[in-house]
């Protein structure tokens, strides 16, 4: 039986009070809190195993390398990738998406090609493509959303064609919580010979994911949104695609051999095997170890349980928000089509004012444009929204408190 109150006991931050208030943390779409198990894993890595990975012959280096490789394997298992060769550790989702855009995009895109993305994307799944299009001359096209903030699949189907080389889409919107049918998108893209690149920053932490079933080509997510440390993220890529592209960053740790050829006076390099050819320089080893522990924690909870807890909490919050006369909520009406993210505004109030007022009661939400300016413009809220987002440790009781405080704010 999933019990958020039991889960909360693992999170030391909830013992803290701010100005006499218990912390109600509803900013999980920005970053999650960390359980003691993750904090301890990072601490014990530094206390017992700290050393640089790969090619060290001493014991600490071997242990550190084993832990770091194990972290890749456990992440691969978590999303049902084939093995660690398909799991590249990066800094975060943004870096992963940039890696795909620059490494895969530079090699495979040219003038006359099209990259299809959507208006509901985070900037990190829009701007890298626009940047590279300026150099390579291809066109970036945007699929619109429907009035309920779901994806306009009809428009997507009309837009994807023989010129399309990539379809870039989020699995779950970081603003509206809209869950896209990635399996359907993959099928459409592949029928047209395009690859599918998915921003999974909001999906992997909150729902069961099977990259083989989704049949995605690249899938990017961050550790810090799924109970792991900051500064560690993941790029999943199908082995055959990762094999064929050149590394994004080059230098130490990602080569098998480097030769200076006297005849040409130049240096040539052979890349290391996957995934290391994409992990130049000393990686975030402690971050990888922390992420492994976060994955273990989530597996123990069960991702089906995580999803159903957040779905139930979202349904409850959406229902209770109806009690407020001045609140306007954005996003899909059906909870099956949305994750635990609720963006809203209070009539006549700036979203930052609402967030600052909630903060006075210990309720942490995010306000603004959430790195998705085009989506806010499309929703007709250029000034931004207040975003409440839930996770495994949030409770109905916290939602009740949130609603009661919003009722007071409405009166202001």
């Amino acid at each position, binding site marked *: 039986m999933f019990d958020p109150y039991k889960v909360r006991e693992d999170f030391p931050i909830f013992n803290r009070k701010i*100005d006499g208030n218990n912390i109600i943390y509803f900013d999980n779409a920005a970053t999650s809190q960390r359980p003691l198990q993750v904090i301890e894993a990072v601490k014990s890595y530094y206390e017992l195993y700290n050393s640089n990975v790969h090619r060290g012959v001493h014991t600490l280096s071997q242990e550190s390398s084993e832990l770091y490789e194990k972290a890749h394997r456990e992440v691969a298992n978590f999303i049902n990738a084939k093995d660690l060769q398909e799991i590249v550790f990066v800094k975060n989702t943004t870096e992963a998406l940039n890696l795909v855009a620059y490494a895969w995009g530079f090699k495979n895109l040219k003038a006359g090609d099209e990259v299809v993305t959507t208006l509901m994307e985070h900037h990190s799944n829009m701007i890298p493509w626009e940047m590279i299009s300026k150099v390579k001359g291809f066109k970036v096209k945007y699929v619109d959303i429907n009035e309920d903030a779901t994806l306009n699949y009809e428009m997507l189907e009309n837009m994807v064609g023989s010129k399309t080389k990539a379809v870039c889409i989020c699995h779950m919107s970081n603003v509206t919580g809209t869950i896209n049918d990635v399996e359907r998108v993959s099928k459409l893209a592949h029928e047209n010979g395009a690859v599918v690149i998915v921003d999974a920053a909001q999906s992997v932490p909150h729902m069961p994911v099977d990259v083989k079933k989704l049949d995605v080509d690249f899938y990017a997510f961050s550790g810090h949104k799924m109970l792991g440390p900051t500064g560690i993220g993941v790029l999943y890529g199908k082995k055959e695609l990762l094999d064929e592209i050149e590394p994004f960053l080059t230098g130490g740790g990602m080569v098998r051999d480097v030769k200076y050829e006297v005849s040409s006076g130049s240096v040539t390099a052979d890349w290391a095997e996957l995934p290391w050819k994409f992990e130049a320089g000393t990686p975030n080893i402690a971050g990888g170890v922390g992420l492994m522990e976060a994955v273990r924690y989530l597996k123990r909870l069960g991702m089906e349980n995580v999803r159903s807890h957040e779905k139930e909490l979202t349904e409850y919050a959406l229902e209770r928000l109806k009690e407020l006369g001045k609140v306007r909520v954005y996003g899909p009406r059906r909870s099956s089509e949305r994750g635990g993210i609720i963006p809203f505004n209070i009539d006549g109030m*700036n979203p*930052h*004012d609402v967030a*600052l*007022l909630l*903060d*006075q009661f210990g309720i942490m939400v995010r306000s*603004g*444009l959430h790195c998705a*300016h085009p989506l*806010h413009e499309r929703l007709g809220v*250029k*000034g*931004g929204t207040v975003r409440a987002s839930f996770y495994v440790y949030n409770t109905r009781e916290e939602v009740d408190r949130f609603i009661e405080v919003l009722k007071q704010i409405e009166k*202001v």
Partner: protein
Amino acid sequence: MSILNDYVANIEETCGEERHFIVMLRFNKRNEAMKKILERGKIEKSFSGLVYEISFKGVQMRLYKTGKILLKNLNERKEVEKILEELLK
């Protein structure tokens, strides 16, 4: 600048077309700073002592009891710094 260093922890600019600034007062000096602001600014409205709507030299701002200030529709960070220096001196 020393007045700002004494009382202000951070000035954050919001993104988007409308430029707002959120000022975080230093935690250990926030009560002293808020007292000065309430004395020098004109209190237009007070909401149960939790939030004050203040005007000062034509600039509107909201002061929260948590020691945060929201200043709306200013063009530059320098304008914010100038107003804060006058309010906090």
